[in-house]
């Protein structure tokens, strides 16, 4: 091989390049590490601590300006594992009132990346949440001894009235899904889980602020970064004014004690919900703070389902309260006129079918039929309507019927500003075609005319029917929040929705409901000096009948429409009517008379035994 030594000197160039690079690096490092002190200083304070400042959550007032839901301070104990040094575990546990086992388990859980995916020994981790002010005072005195532990101030809810838990809802720690859906949240944040807290979360939560602090290498706070120039002040949440009348709410929950059921009252002219009670219920205060998890578990395991807001989530056969809607439909469709009478021979008897009825005069026109709640009358009405030659077929007739029901707010969500509203159920002709294989007529489905059978409504929908009749033909979507501070309400809460029925027909039904109070099934609701209109309901079901009442007052200037539904309460007159009357009296006169107070106590004491079954 030929040796080529021409370029041998180039090795010096290459070695020179290597040395030049190393020398250049050493010079640079010399200036970075030895000469320049800035980096060192900066490093000492380089450890930014982004401290979140939680805004105060919006508070809630009732319609009369009473403070219902407010905030009280609570304190989270945070730990930064990196900075825990020479901890006197015993003193620490004593100051917090925890056991050593709990302490060790907690530390283990914090470090467990499966349980706590965001773990880093450099950042604050939640050690213990929501210390009360008293516990905190004890702990804070000794905090200086516990390196690595710090306090994060938060607020928790405070309830001045221990009612309406279903409506207020509660706050819980955000789930993984919440974080995925909205990047506002980070682990450990709280979010509205139910009720208004959930529905109005975006208004109530406000906006988190940020404080950028500087830490030295030992984690000690050295001051604020750029004197707080980059800090962001928190924006407090918006306050809500609810449409609830808290005293009415208290009365309603009191009357439902020891019973399963609900009471809903609506101001017909605005759609504002005046009270919405669901029983069994719970004190919202028990779902606050550290005991929340435990209590929530107890409530969710309760067979009577106290967490369920039956007023909007329970679907029931409306029973005779439904007859008003039937009367309106038949009148508008021209099936009957107010003068039309139908016979009742202890009920509806036709082609071997018998729907029972209680004894009363026969035949009856519409107004007394409503007053006495005659089953036969409305069975005849539906039978006539489905068979009527005004429509091309039974199906067509039935779909007209269904359109009326839907226009009255049945079968679909009314759109109340609470999560979890149920739709109830209104069948259409396709449903029956499928159910009966196309072979059905007015007789087959006759029971829906008296609010039995396939039809189900929520108590809210029944109350809304009362409001619709009170308004003589329209309703405004019911809502529990009257005003969000500085925000316009959704227009659905101010836009009237008309039903398909002419206004004049409503007057007939109102007369019938007034007659029911004066001479019919709900005489117990006849309040002195107030023209109350009402309709009882006694809904058959597998157990004892449900007791229902729907009404409004006063007749010519309705201020309140109400629905009462007591499961297995028996006749409508047993629970529905007296409860409805008491609520209306309380709302319209502002107080209860001595006799009424006595009656209220009596109802409050009465217990319905439900057995040990799942409800």
């Amino acid at each position, binding site marked *: 091989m030929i*040796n080529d030594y021409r370029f041998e000197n180039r090795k010096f160039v290459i070695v020179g390049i290597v040395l030049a*690079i*190393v020398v250049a690096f*050493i010079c640079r490092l010399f200036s970075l*590490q030895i000469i320049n002190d800035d980096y060192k200083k*900066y490093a000492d304070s380089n450890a930014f601590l982004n401290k979140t400042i939680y805004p105060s959550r919006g508070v809630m007032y009732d319609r009369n300006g009473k403070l219902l839901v407010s905030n009280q301070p609570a304190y989270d104990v945070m730990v930064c594992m990196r900075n825990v040094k020479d901890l006197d575990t015993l003193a620490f546990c004593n100051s917090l009132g925890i056991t050593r086992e709990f302490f060790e388990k907690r530390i283990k859980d914090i470090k467990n990346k499966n349980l706590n995916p965001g773990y880093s*020994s450099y950042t604050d981790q939640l050690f213990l949440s929501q210390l009360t002010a008293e516990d905190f005072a004890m702990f804070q005195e000794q905090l200086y001894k516990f390196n690595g532990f710090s306090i994060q101030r938060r607020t928790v809810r405070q309830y001045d009235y221990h009612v309406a838990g279903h409506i207020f809802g509660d706050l819980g720690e955000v789930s993984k899904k919440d974080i995925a859906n909205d990047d506002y949240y980070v682990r450990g944040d709280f979010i509205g889980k139910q009720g208004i807290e959930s529905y109005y979360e975006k208004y109530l939560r406000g906006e988190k602020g940020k404080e950028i602090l500087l830490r030295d290498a030992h984690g000690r706070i050295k001051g604020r970064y750029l004197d707080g120039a980059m800090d962001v002040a928190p924006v407090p949440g918006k306050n809500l004014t609810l449409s609830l009348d808290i005293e009415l709410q208290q009365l309603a929950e009191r009357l439902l004690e020891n019973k399963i059921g609900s009471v809903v009252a609506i101001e017909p002219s605005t759609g504002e919900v005046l009270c919405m009670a669901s029983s069994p219920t719970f004190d919202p205060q028990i779902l606050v703070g550290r005991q929340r998890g435990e209590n929530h578990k107890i409530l969710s395991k309760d067979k009577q389902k106290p967490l369920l807001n039956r007023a909007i989530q329970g679907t029931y056969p409306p029973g005779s309260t439904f007859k008003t809607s039937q009367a309106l439909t038949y009148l508008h469709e021209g099936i009957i006129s107010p003068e039309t009478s139908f016979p009742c021979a202890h009920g509806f008897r036709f082609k071997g079918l018998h729907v029972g009825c209680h004894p009363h005069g026969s035949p009856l026109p519409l107004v007394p039929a409503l007053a006495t709640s005659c089953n036969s009358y409305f069975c005849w009405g539906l039978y006539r309507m489905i068979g009527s030659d005004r429509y091309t077929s039974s199906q067509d007739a039935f779909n007209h019927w269904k359109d009326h029901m839907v226009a009255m707010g049945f079968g679909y969500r009314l759109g109340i500003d609470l999560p979890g509203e149920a739709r109830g159920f209104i069948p259409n002709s396709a449903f029956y075609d499928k159910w009966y294989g196309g072979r059905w007529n007015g007789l087959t489905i006759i029971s829906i005319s008296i609010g039995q059978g396939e039809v189900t409504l929520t108590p809210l929908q029944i109350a809304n029917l009362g409001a619709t009749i009170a308004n003589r033909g329209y309703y405004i979507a019911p809502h529990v929040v009257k005003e969000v501070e500085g925000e316009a309400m959704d227009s659905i809460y101010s836009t009237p929705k008309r039903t398909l029925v002419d206004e004049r027909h409503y007057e007939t039904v109102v007369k019938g409901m007034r007659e029911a109070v004066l001479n019919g099934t709900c005489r117990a609701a006849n309040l002195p000096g107030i023209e109350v209109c009402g309709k009882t309901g006694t809904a058959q079901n597998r157990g004892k009948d449900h007791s229902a009442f729907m009404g409004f007052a006063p007749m010519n200037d309705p201020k309140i429409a109400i629905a009462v539904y007591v499961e297995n309460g028996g006749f409508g007159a047993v629970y529905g009517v007296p409860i409805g009357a008491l609520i209306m009296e309380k709302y319209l006169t502002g107080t209860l008379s001595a006799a009424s107070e006595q009656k209220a106590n009596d109802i409050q004491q009465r217990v319905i035994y439900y057995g040990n079954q799942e409800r």
Partner: protein
Amino acid sequence: MAIRNVNLWRSIDWFTIILYFLLVACGWLSICGATYDFGDTDFFSFSSFTGKQLVWIGCALVIAIILLNIEKKYYEMLAYPTYIGFVILLAATIFIAPDIKGSHSWLVIGPIRIQPAEFSKFATALCLSRLLSSYGFSMEKRSDFIKMIAIVVIPMLLIILQDETGSALVYAAFFLVLYREGMTGSLLALGVCMVAYFVIGVGQGENVFDKMPVNVGQFIVFLLIPLFTALAVGVYGKHVGRAWWIACTNLFATLVAYLFSRYVIPFDICIVQLVLCGCTALYLIYTFLLDRYASYLLIALFALGSVGFYYSCNMLIDKLQPHQQMRILVLLGIKDDPAGVGYNINQSKIAIGSGGLWGKGFLEGTQTKLNYVPEQHTDFIFCTIGEEQGFMGCIFILLLYAVFIIRIIMLAERQGSNKFTRVYGYSLASILTFHLFVNVGMVIGLAPVIGIPLPFFSYGGSSLWGFTILLAILLRLDAEREARF
């Protein structure tokens, strides 16, 4: 002549092996520091980075021992097939590799992820050695020259297509080898000039001096042009006096313009610099006409061409789509993170700066942990050394590298007429130098942010194995050397 049955134990270069073990050990300790996470860190657990790195080191040693036992003739024989195999593998990787952080460079085989680009370096080095040492090869022959360049450029292009521009740039190191083997140095110098113009001109293109309407990038480039020109006159024009004359007049005039702009009337000094470059070129053309010496004309063209190159780079950048611009800027380290320009580099400079003379001590660093410096156990591993071992630790590591690379150059140079081993040795030295320059330069803020590992230090099997293979082959080739004297 090659000695049959070499006594590996006696003829192998133990000094290099000791240096290798020192580097690997320091690297592992640095990973300990970088991934140490308070109290319960188990360095030997297989789920930790350090535990896995120990496995990679063990595997690397096994690979090294196997490679040390393969005779040189096989390396020569298999150089071309290996290279072709790797070219095919690199091409296939573009299509079959899944998208991992925007690059298609990782082959996933079960639980193992391998980056072929880290291994194709040794194949390229072998192939280049084979070509350059083949009988009758001459760089002056156009066909040989093209073959030589193609061997380097093909894997480079394939790796660029894998969206691993950083790893592709490493192949530029081979030009240093070619320079040693006789490629004209002016080409290398020209390349360095172009890269410098581009990196500085575009990289500093958004900065403006205080109180003066002067673009920093343009100013530096227009200052470099006359200086490079003067250097060229000194080297190729064989006239040191003229070189000094050009350099001094340019520097003086620029200084006057700078002072005037700074303290009297602010104006764009670049206009003066442009005129100076023009005058320099005219002076060189005048000299060419006077002396009839062609180099002067070429140098004049170089000066003018440099100015043109700077402007066309700027125009090119402006013409590009915003996202393409962004990619170039990111590559140059100007826009390396959306949160804030230069965040990574700042953090890493802070970490190193905070180390001081002696450092904070092993495992005592606070800045290089997960929170502040990104990629602290891979590309930014040098931060940990800077912070925990301080200036002295950095010097130790850098000197260790210098000695290691120079030792490899010595191995390459002691091969006598054995061109194969020499080219191969220079390939390894050049690749190491390039990695060291770019990686440490990036961490201390001297080079653009290009994500390539620090050899033997950065966490990861591919990189460690890649360099171990390169070194093991060299040690074997060297063990079969013939005494030059």
